[in-house]
């Protein structure tokens, strides 16, 4: 199916599973914090108090840490959605849209499957979320294999379509009639909610995300599949001559990536929201993509970068209250971290 473009992918880049060295990553983060401190001072805030609040509110308390874990779930899963296709040199920027479709499909099962046991309901929702996300990635895959449409552009544009697609349902047929007019679906039954952990908002989705990261690491790094994927990503033609079914690996990596982003959507509705609503994701898909890039597409390093972005994300919420700092400012800090960590490395010239 994907054979034609696959043949043309002679310039495929070997995307290696290499995270930036820790020292350089820390230097980049440090430099970003210094620049952001200048910004805070310039806008009349005390950077030291702000940073103290940022770190104590996230790393210094049980609740804070649990909130960081809550946001790690979508960052890690949508990060894997970029990391797995990156092994075969496909670039999936559609985690955001795939997350929405996963949430939508899982919600369909939660509201209309009629399953009453959580032992049936939750696996069904996981499966639906995975298939929903994979289907959305599949659209980009089809456009690529049939019409040579680059997956970067198609996945980006499909993100906007996915948000609108969910809106059709939450403003329309799925809207909760008793919901005071808000664009929410009805709340899920207890069987359709992921169990909370430690009496916090943290939920079983974190275990799902950690397991997925570990599994991806093992499959990509330690198995024949992973080896074949790396060969496909490095040089399609050479891989084909070795007898590797490259079309299957290209398609499989993209679909699994989409499915993992779909799981992020499923976790969000089943673990946090307990219903589907308009705009369930605050750019999680984009942040996950960038977390994966920061991690050099290494699933284990992604746990660290996902954790870092989650700390900034949660800390931003706290600073909004304590330092009267609009949440938008956190995107400035995240942008600075990305620029500096990506930019401190003087890479060999690379195309992508």
């Amino acid at each position, binding site marked *: 199916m994907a054979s034609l473009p696959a043949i043309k*992918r002679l310039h495929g880049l070997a995307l290696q599973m290499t995270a930036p060295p820790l020292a350089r990553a820390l230097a980049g983060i440090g430099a970003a914090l210094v620049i952001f401190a200048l910004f805070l001072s310039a806008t009349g805030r005390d950077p030291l108090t702000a940073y103290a609040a940022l770190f104590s509110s996230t790393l210094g308390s049980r609740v804070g840490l649990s909130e960081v874990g809550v946001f790690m779930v979508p960052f890690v899963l949508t990060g894997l959605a970029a990391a797995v296709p990156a092994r075969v040199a496909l670039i999936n920027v559609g985690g955001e849209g795939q997350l929405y479709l996963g949430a939508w499909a899982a919600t369909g099962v939660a509201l209309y499957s009629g399953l009453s046991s959580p032992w049936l309901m939750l696996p069904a929702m996981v499966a639906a979320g995975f298939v929903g996300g994979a289907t959305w990635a599949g659209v980009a895959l089809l456009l690529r294999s049939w019409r040579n449409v680059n997956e970067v*552009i198609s996945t980006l544009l499909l993100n906007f379509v996915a948000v609108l697609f969910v809106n059709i349902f939450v*403003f329309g047929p799925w809207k909760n009639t008793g919901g005071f007019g808000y664009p929410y679906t009805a709340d899920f039954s207890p069987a359709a909610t992921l169990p909370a952990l430690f009496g916090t908002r943290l939920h079983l989705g974190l275990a799902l995300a950690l397991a997925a990261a570990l599994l991806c690491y093992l499959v990509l790094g330690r198995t024949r599949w992973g080896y074949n994927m790396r060969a496909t990503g490095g040089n399609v033609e050479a891989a084909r001559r070795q007898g590797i079914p490259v079309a299957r690996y290209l398609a499989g990596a993209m679909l699994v990536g989409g499915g993992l982003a779909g799981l992020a959507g499923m976790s969000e509705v089943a673990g946090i929201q307990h219903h589907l609503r308009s705009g369930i994701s605050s750019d999680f898909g984009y942040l996950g993509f960038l977390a994966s890039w920061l991690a050099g597409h290494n699933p284990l390093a992604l746990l660290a970068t996902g954790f870092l972005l989650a700390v900034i994300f949660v800390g931003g919420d706290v600073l909004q209250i304590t330092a009267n700092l609009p949440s*938008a400012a956190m995107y400035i800090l995240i942008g600075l971290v990305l620029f500096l960590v*990506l930019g401190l490395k003087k890479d060999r010239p690379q*195309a*992508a």
Partner: protein
Amino acid sequence: MSTVLLALAGALSGAVGPGISVLYATYGEMITEKAGRINLGIEGSMLMGACFGFAATVETGNVLAGVLAGALAGMGLSLVHAYLVVFRNTSQLATGLAVTLFGAGVTAYAGRGYVGSSIVGLDPIGLPLLEQMPLLGKALFRQDLLAYAAYALGPLLWAFLRYTRWGLSLRAVGESTSVAFAAGRNPARWQVGAIAAGGLLAGLGGAQLSLALTHSWSDGMTAGRGFIAVALVIFGMWSPLRAMIGAFLFGGAIGLQLQLQTIGAPVSPFILDMFPYVITLAVLAVWTGAALRAMPEGLKGVLKGTI
């Protein structure tokens, strides 16, 4: 039937206005890509142009100052991309997205005080006689100054790329940096210039959006127009004249959507909102082989056998 015709006529007359901001961004991205670089950060540059163009207009009361501020803000953001990809060899796609995210943060922060402000924006100016042309007269010749400038810019850019020394240098760098270097050009300088020019034009597009089309600023108001511009560059096969067709197609999709909404078509408004993205994707899927051949050599490493 008559409602459909009415909607199509309305879409036609409304196709130009919403297309102009995208057209500027498409010109900008085209210059960048002609030099062999891709910048997904132009979505952010458009936001910068929309936000700072609007804020400067509110502060100075002078819309031309706003246009200038918007263009410079768009260019300023693109310089971050230029530095990172040209001098630090970072991944172009990841860097562009990070730049867009950063631009979204900066504009959401800086634009807080301006949500809901009112301005005297760029108003449509009718061109005498031309305006009275049947069918397209009003659509094309009752527009704002930036729209007229955009009409002129297409042919100018085409001629610039094709016939001038600078245009040749730019294209040479986009085809092969090593050959261009051997021919005495400094590829890094040309690429930085091309990315900056791209950001400037995207900023102008953003300014047109907030100053002429909506007369307002809101967070994330570009809604992916920068990404659509990236797609339209491909649809336009790296030619400014074809890009104009693409931008008006996009504008037509928005015009049709608004028109159907106004006449109360029994369709979910969210389906109508999908039009611009879906039509852009469809158009991209239809035009492939020819576009692939027209791609600057330097981009092939990024887009790898696809468009």
